[in-house]
């Protein structure tokens, strides 16, 4: 029975002694009958001998450092357990925008209402009094116009407030 031709990588494994004893024996038997595989085996052995004879190539000076530097530069930094400053700032801004600003604006509006509310109410009360047909109109005009001026932040008689 003829042993079938072997692939080049099996011949290479035979040369390097990487086959099992049974495979070694089987391959040797095949070589006795197969001139083609013998030529192939001889060729590979010669190449291997030539390579072993060659001097190892010299590594260019500084290559290792350059590669190391490149690797260092491209390395993704490890995440720290502490948030980055930009993240802290962004979070703070978000908190200010979503919480503090409305709170401050609400506080400001509340203070404004406390300051201007009484003048608004005086004017509205005077307007409501217009429904009284006996009310003196010149008096009513005086009260409402004074209230409008107070709402505008002006003294009704032009005095410095």
């Amino acid at each position, binding site marked *: 029975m003829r042993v079938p031709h072997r692939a080049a990588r099996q011949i290479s494994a035979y040369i390097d002694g990487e086959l099992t004893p049974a495979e070694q024996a089987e391959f040797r038997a095949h070589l006795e009958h197969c001139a083609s595989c013998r030529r192939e085996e001889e060729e590979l052995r010669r190449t291997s001998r030539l390579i072993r004879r060659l001097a190892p190539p010299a590594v260019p000076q500084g290559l290792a450092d350059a590669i190391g530097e490149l690797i260092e530069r491209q390395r993704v930094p490890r995440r720290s357990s502490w948030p980055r400053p930009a993240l802290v700032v962004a979070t703070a801004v978000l908190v200010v925008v979503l919480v503090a600003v409305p709170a401050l604006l609400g506080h400001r509006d509340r203070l404004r209402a406390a300051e201007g509310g009484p003048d608004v109410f005086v*004017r509205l009360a005077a307007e*409501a009094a217009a429904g009284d047909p*006996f*009310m003196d109109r*010149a008096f009513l005009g005086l009260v*409402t116009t004074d209230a409008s001026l107070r709402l505008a932040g002006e003294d009704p008689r032009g005095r410095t407030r």
Partner: protein
Amino acid sequence: MRAPGTLWLSVLALAALALPSQAQPVPRLGGVTVLEVARHAVIAQQIVDYEGTKVLSVLRGDSMETTTVSEAHKRPGKSRLEYLSPEGLAGRVVIDDGLTSWHYEPRLHTVFEGPSLAPPSGVPSPGLFDRKRISLLGTEEVIGRPTAVLRMEPLAGRGERRLWVDRTTGVTLRYEERDPEEGLVMTSYFTRISFGLNMPDALFRPRVPAGARVVNVGPPTAPLLPVAEVEKSLRLPLPVPETLPGGFVLAGGRAVESGLLRAAHMHYRDGARSVALFVARSSQMGPPGRGEPVAELGPGARSLTVGVMRLLLWEDGGRRFTLVGPLPVADLVSMALALSMPRAR
């Protein structure tokens, strides 16, 4: 101008339309009842044109301020007021066409536009004389014209107003308001008056001076609504009683807005005067930064005098209450205490 006799007939015919069904004994003046004279005073504003100069004295704080004003009225609801003195008021003009009022302030070169302050038009409402006692004090002459002197007092309240009603036209030539504690708080009288001048409409049409700033001070006054509707509109519980000490009765309320401030405006009347109660969320209106402390109403409560009005501000149950009226602070405090008491409406 109509003949005086014709005018009287018109006035009495209109007055008869609105006479109350319940009869009450009233003194008469030449065959005319005191209520008819009072109605005449109301209706005159809708049927008489006049122009005159009036002197107005008003209690502001601890002193009286006297003002001179040129007053013109064109039926049914147009008016023009031009304040002549004191110096700080001189040149102030208020024009009202029955729908809108314009106030021009020369020193600011600004026009303030707001709702009309004209009295209600039409036949006087049947409830106009409810809860008030009206009596005829006699007759007097004012600037040479015969007048009927009326006194109006709230049945359950204090204070009074007096009107000198021109017997020919029905126009009130003199007016006074008195408080039992403070005495005379306001008085006005014409020093001259002319009737039926056929004044041009242009006199009652506002002309914004070139370059003047126009400021809108608010929308037209909304009609009064039941409390429940105001509560629903504002989503704010309003524990307001139907009556307040001094004989003030709740007439209704409305939701009002100024900037971001939304409040309920409840209107109380005693038959002669009115008091306004404003209720806002404390989260929308802080404690007042001015005024005198009012210990009875807790920390932060204050009383203020703003022109002729007195204000009382306090907080209760997350709401900021403000009472506004031409009343002594003691009266407002007793009202506030009544409002702060636990109650079920």
